[in-house]
């Protein structure tokens, strides 16, 4: 594993022009996590190691008929094991996937974000949210094809996995990868992880998983967290989209409006009007879903 040389080398900033190319960025290799589902035992070490390292708040969960701790990621849970029981060719498979930010190379969240500097893509590929600059508009929720960013009503900010940018910057691997008991989560340069992933897919094919595949979806420019998927023909059973792209569909005009909105936001407040005119629907849907979830939890306890 090589260490990214300059963790603060920046490639892209939300709602801002690209920074000037720096001569220092040339040597920053792209990094990636590789989640080998064939090695994953669903122990949740990554889930809690993430919470411990990032000092994330404890949430009051309840058992809803599953080994899964939360129904989906939350502002305080950036890494979640998803459990799905399916029968494949008459045999039972317990499909377990670590869900957390995939760190898209073309990040839908960043492209959708109207707040300058709230989302940053580093030269090494890590996509990080800067809550100081987040305005809580939740466009990123809509832009993300993986349903990763989560809005916290209390702080009115959006949160997600940082790929432990603080650790990576210090030459350490992300907390989830470090903890993983079975080395199902690997971390290194994107090139190395691609090679590892392909080798693992080959081994799975030899073991009879003929549809094994490496999940590095091109629609988002590839990702900086990839999966080795044993049943690559059953992506939906792992709750993985088949061909994700940054969500621009319902927000066709986002690009243009975002820039306008961003300019206005810098000056003060008028951007709000824009927001409500253009994107209210999508945002409200996202909020309502979360509202329902909270109510349900409230009702349980």
């Amino acid at each position, binding site marked *: 594993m090589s260490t990214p040389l300059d963790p603060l080398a920046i490639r892209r900033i939300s709602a801002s022009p690209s920074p000037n190319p720096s001569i220092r960025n040339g040597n920053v290799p792209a990094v990636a996590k590789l989640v080998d589902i064939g090695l994953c035992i669903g122990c949740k070490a990554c889930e809690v190691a993430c919470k411990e390292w990032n000092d994330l708040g404890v949430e009051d969960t309840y*058992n809803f008929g599953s080994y899964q701790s939360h129904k989906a990621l939350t502002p305080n849970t950036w890494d979640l094991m998803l459990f799905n029981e399916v029968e494949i060719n008459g045999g039972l498979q317990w499909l377990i996937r670590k869900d957390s930010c995939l760190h898209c190379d073309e990040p839908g969240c960043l492209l959708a974000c109207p707040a300058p500097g709230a989302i940053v893509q580093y030269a090494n590929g890590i996509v990080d949210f800067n809550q100081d600059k987040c305005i809580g508009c939740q466009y990123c929720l809509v832009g993300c094809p993986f349903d990763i960013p989560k809005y916290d009503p209390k702080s009115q900010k959006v949160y997600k996995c940082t790929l432990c940018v603080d650790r990576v910057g210090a030459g350490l691997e992300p907390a989830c990868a470090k903890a993983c008991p079975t080395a199902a989560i690997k971390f290194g340069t994107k090139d190395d992880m691609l090679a590892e992933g392909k080798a693992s897919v080959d081994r799975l094919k030899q073991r009879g998983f003929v549809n094994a595949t490496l999940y590095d979806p091109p629609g988002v420019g590839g990702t900086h967290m990839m999966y080795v998927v044993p049943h690559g023909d059953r992506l939906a059973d792992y709750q993985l989209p088949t061909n994700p792209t940054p969500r621009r569909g319902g927000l066709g005009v986002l690009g243009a409006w975002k820039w306008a909105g961003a300019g206005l936001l810098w000056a003060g407040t008028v951007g709000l009007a824009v927001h409500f005119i253009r994107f209210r629907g999508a945002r409200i849907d996202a909020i309502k879903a979360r509202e329902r979830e909270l109510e349900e939890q409230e009702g349980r306890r």
Partner: protein
Amino acid sequence: MVSLATTFGRGAMTNHWRDLEHADVMFIVGANPAENHPCGFRWALVAREKRGTKIVHVDPRFTRTSAVADYYMPIRAGTDIAMLGFLIKTAIEKNLYHEEYVKHYTSAPLLVKDGFGFKDGYFTGWSASANDYTDKSTWAYQLDSSGYAKQDPTLQDPQSVFQLMKQHYSRYDVDTVSKITGATAEQLQKLADIVLSTGRPDKVGCALYAVGYTHHSKGVQMIRTLAMLQLLLGNVGRPGGGVDAERGHANIQGNTDNAISWELLPGYLRIPLAGQETLADHFSVNVPKKFDPKSINYLSNYPKFLISLLKAWWGNAAQKSNDFAYSYLPKPGAPSSWLDIFNAAYTGKLQGLIMNGMSPANIGPNSNAVIKALGNLKWLVVMDPFETATSQFWKDAPGADPAKVQTEVFLLPTTHWLEKDGAFTNSGRWAQWKDKALGAPGDAKDDAWVFTQLYQRLKAAYQKGGTFSDPILNLTWDYLDPYYPSLTEISKEINGKDLTTGKQLASFALLKDDGTTSSGDWIYCGSFTEDGNQMARRKTTDPTRMGFYPEWAWSWPLNRRVLYNRASADLQGQPWDPTRPGILWNGKQWVGDVPDFPPTSPPSDGIKPFIMLGEGVGRFFSLGLLVDGPFPEHYEPVESPTPNLLHPNVSADPKAVRFPSVQDKFGTPDQFPYVATTYRVTEHEHYVTMNVPYLVEAMPDMFVEIPVELAQEKGIVNGGRVKVRSLRGEIEAVAVVTKRMKPLQVNGKTVYQVGIPIHWGYVGIHKGGMGNTLTNFVGDANARTPAFKAFLVNVEKV
């Protein structure tokens, strides 16, 4: 422990965690390592990546281990001896065993006395009137004039252990075993194909088990069947092989080694029993007999170990003239195990109880009975960093009325592992020293401090008078600070020293029976030598590249990483598989791992590999050492949905330990039709993690796993609430309705199994039903371990 000691000589995991990476087949039974030993299980997956290891999991539940296994086979809880007996039968009849190994390294050629047999559920010697085996005279070898066991090297003699074993398991045909276990014939055949593929020199397989095998009324025999299978396949003593007992808690191995166990003294010496009036009496029972001239029979040194222990404990008060203070040792007159303790409390015979980092109220079995037993005590002490269900039983147990509970309760706050140093011994026998990283919070104190403070008060009191005060007043307590000894000092005492020079000893081979050496636990002799604390070593070199890491920590005995490693090589001293050597003879000496005999003794000396046994070889036939027979036999759990198909009149193990006083009533299938099994999940460790917020968040509530088909019959919905009842009590839980619990066809009937985790209770961040409210108060015939893993329940929608 009992089973492995009986079969191989030492009651411990034969190999170590890292060693799993050398296996071709990983046979996992009665265990769920992906959940309960995740970082150890890493090496199973490494092995598969590296060498295509086949991971096989046989379990009543499809768990997170099954999810990554190459082959999962369901089985009805409590029927594993049938499954393993089928494998033994198949290995023998299809000639899939490792013949050279079996001939030279096992007891297969030894001849058993005429008249030994098995009929209608009983071995020879059963007395119906006494309800016991009253005549075990045929459970023995035929001896020659020198007292050694007679042998037939061809294995053809009908009285040879091999032929008797073959005959015993001839009844375990695939159809019968399928009807018993609920696994189909096809599934069993596939299992045999994979597991028996290692019965040859160039292949090796390891067997892993945990409390899924110990928690049965015949758990010892279950493990023994597994150990016998591994002997047949020639897998014991080899890297990548062995029978790996996965211990549960951080230092469960270390403190079994140190004899927090009613029948033991440190180092697996035996507590003397009533009637063994002198050391000589005790030795005559416990020093094993030598059955083969080439057997080292290392336990013939037993007197040196015990006398050195008595010197460690009573110093100058232990002299040859007083039989080395042998009379100071208590001599139990009856079994005094966990179940016996709570039976005594339940019946009002026990006055006081001191609990240290352990909570019987949750562990049970039969938590309601245990809680009642706690209420019968005069005084109860709980030493723990947290409140436990045991410390709070008088106020928080369901229906508790403090005014009616007359037990005086002490809750003494103790420190955590991080707040003190000392060594933990892991399941693979590696003793690892740890740092003290933090001070204690509040007034919490180290356990050693509490014991010491108590000791000093008791000593002062006995100086003024009291019953039989000599063992207390003469107890060695010569620590630099007698009110707070350092763990380093105690560690040196455990290792032992030469009393004439005062020097730390480097090996238990130096211990003497004349009172000139001391050693608190002979198997740890070598752990803290004149060269310092060997357990604190942190060197990451691995000269043989076999994963022994000989200078990382220290493993007993004598830093040996794989037990019985002589069996890793053939008669000429060459490894069975040159790519995976344990030890090998290089023409001058043995190299590799640490051998358990002189390293310069050439293969031509013919030293036998199982040095702790009088035979020197692995035991298929356990003589009279186990109370329920020399060969394991399938018996049904005491609560079972079916009669025993092999012998319906003797369904359960006739020697299963029962307690009429607590509850000798058992549920029947008409009232309680479903087989239940208890277990742990990866997010929790017993009860202490109910205090850890992130872990409660990760696995929040008490649940039970219910087959989809049963849920449909009963109208139970996933995530809804259910009530689970046994004859002992009932609990409520969330239903996890799952395809992972498949209905089984047992003797023509559909049997459902229900999974019950044990982590919740009435103390903790989240509260919930206690799984052990349901379990039965029955013990293993030999180890007296409660049978938590197979009993009957009913389930209904709430």
